[in-house]
């Protein structure tokens, strides 16, 4: 009955969701970061990629953020000739970040984090109740 492995798995899950939340924060903070000069590209939305890998120390498969990749969808275009980085037609390229999608992602990350936390809690409870047997 090895509860430490269970808790290690859930802790890795929490860490992964924390990384995901960090990337969401990055995206939201840079939702309006345009390019500095007319030729450059603005901020590209980042995306996390999860994978289930063997963790040698714990000896079990834990989930890990293997890559923080970029979202390859198109940039948004806004018509604003007075902007310093407007191109010849007067369009400014804005980042491909949608705040609705990011806040939904944030809620998902929070929900998954709480789920992992409750699994750790129940494993801890099972362990402590077993130890309490010694008391009576």
């Amino acid at each position: 009955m090895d509860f430490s492995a269970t808790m290690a798995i859930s802790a890795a899950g929490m860490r992964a969701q924390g990384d995901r939340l960090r990337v969401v924060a990055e995206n939201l903070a840079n939702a309006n970061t345009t390019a500095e000069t007319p030729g450059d590209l603005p901020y590209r939305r980042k995306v996390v990629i999860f994978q289930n890998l063997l963790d040698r120390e714990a000896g079990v498969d834990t989930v890990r953020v293997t890559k923080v990749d970029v979202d390859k969808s198109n940039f948004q275009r806004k018509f604003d000739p007075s902007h310093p980085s407007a191109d010849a037609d007067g369009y400014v390229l804005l980042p491909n970040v949608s705040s609705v999608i990011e806040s939904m992602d944030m809620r998902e990350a929070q929900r998954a984090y709480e789920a992992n936390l409750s699994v750790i809690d129940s494993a801890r409870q099972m362990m402590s109740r077993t130890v309490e047997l010694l008391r009576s």
Partner: protein
Amino acid sequence: MDLSKLGVMKLMTRKMDYLGERQQVIAQNVANLNTPDYKPNDLKPFTFRRALTDARRLAPDATDAAHLAGTVADGTKNQKARDRRPYETTPDGNAVVLEQQMLKSAETTADYQTMLNLYKKQVTMIRTAIRTGGG
């Protein structure tokens, strides 16, 4: 007197081991809530009948080093079973339903608590039997 040799105790410890392992499998499922192409696992249910048959099963005797162990499952291991018909699968291949996993986790904890209480009762009974020595 070895407590672990008593039939009831053996069964209860076996069930508690099963529940501990099941909790690990559930933790694995919950941690992989967003991993693409991940299908949730679960252990085959622990029934009294299966535990009895497993306890009575005789493993083939390996008298020579070259003898194979055989493909019949060892009675002491819990077998993983994959859910063949998941409730829903997301477009990226992930089939973990959080509510189901939370329910299983709560079930496991409640079962474990039940087993612990039964174990306590058994030990109290034995202790009473030992204590009552006088006329």
